[in-house]
């Protein structure tokens, strides 16, 4: 029952997030609104990264790969460090 509540609450919060993001605009990062803004005012605008992966869906793909790899490493180590009662048996 608790799992069902958690899944439902997650979906509802996600939907609320979608609604908010659509309502409030582009959600720029503070690099744009603060760091790059002050750098541009000082005449030092950022230049393209040496390995520019910000092309189409490539960056999205790399973020997903990074998240999956990080999640896997973290989960694998977590299971080794904090085994469940079933694993201990």
């Amino acid at each position: 029952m608790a799992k069902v509540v958690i899944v439902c609450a997650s979906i509802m919060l996600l939907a609320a997030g979608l609604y908010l993001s659509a309502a409030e605009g582009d959600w720029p990062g503070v690099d744009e609104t603060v760091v790059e803004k002050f750098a541009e005012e000082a005449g030092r605008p950022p230049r393209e990264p040496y390995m520019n992966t910000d092309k189409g869906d490539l960056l999205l793909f790399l973020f997903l790969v990074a998240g999956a790899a990080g999640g896997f490493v973290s989960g694998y180590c977590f299971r080794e460090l904090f085994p469940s009662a079933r694993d201990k048996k």
Partner: protein
Amino acid sequence: MRRCLRFIILGLVVLIAWPASARAMHISEGILPAPWAGLWFVVAIPFVAWGLHDIKVRSRQDPKYKTFLAMVGAAVFIISCMPIPIPGVGTCSHPCGTGLAAILIGPGPTVVITSIALLLQALFLAHGGLTTLGANIVSMGVVGGLAGYMSFRVLKTARLPVALAAFGAGAIADWATYASTSFELSSALHADGSMWGMFATIMVAFVPTQLPLGIFEGLLSAATYRFVLARRPELLKPNVAQTEA
């Protein structure tokens, strides 16, 4: 405890799934003039060397330490490239995870894992930059890690509950990271104007996003530290010993 964990997992699910632009606070490529970029590399190198030495020593003492280090490193990598939208402000920013890392694995190793995370982000995720890597290591790994670790020690010495001390470590590490980013930017870019004036202006610009984010990072640190302390206190022994020394 289980209930607390469920809330953390729920929170993480929402944060990961929340739609947002994948950008945050790292100083981007080309913003810092070459001498300043070089200077921050010079500042960062001794801390990285200290961290590598610390990892070597602790790995000899505890065979599980490397596994713990890998887990915390992966967590810092994910946390520091996770943009979190701040409702009401309309912008995104990311937590750092270095305060939590410092109280779990120590401040030296935190610099090493932060350096690896930032290097991967600069190479593959167009996040930060290779020339500004030194500056980003100093702000997030060195200042963030040390601020979190020192505040944890001070709060523990003041006999505050461990969860509150961990909360302080997470929040202060986050704010210290952004304060040092402001310093790095203002020291390099103030030109003929006042450096401290520019520093204050950048700090104020960070406040609306970082104030709530620091509190979130404090809560995350408190919950995680309490969890590890309850389940595997021996993993924290070197830090506990240092804290009590």
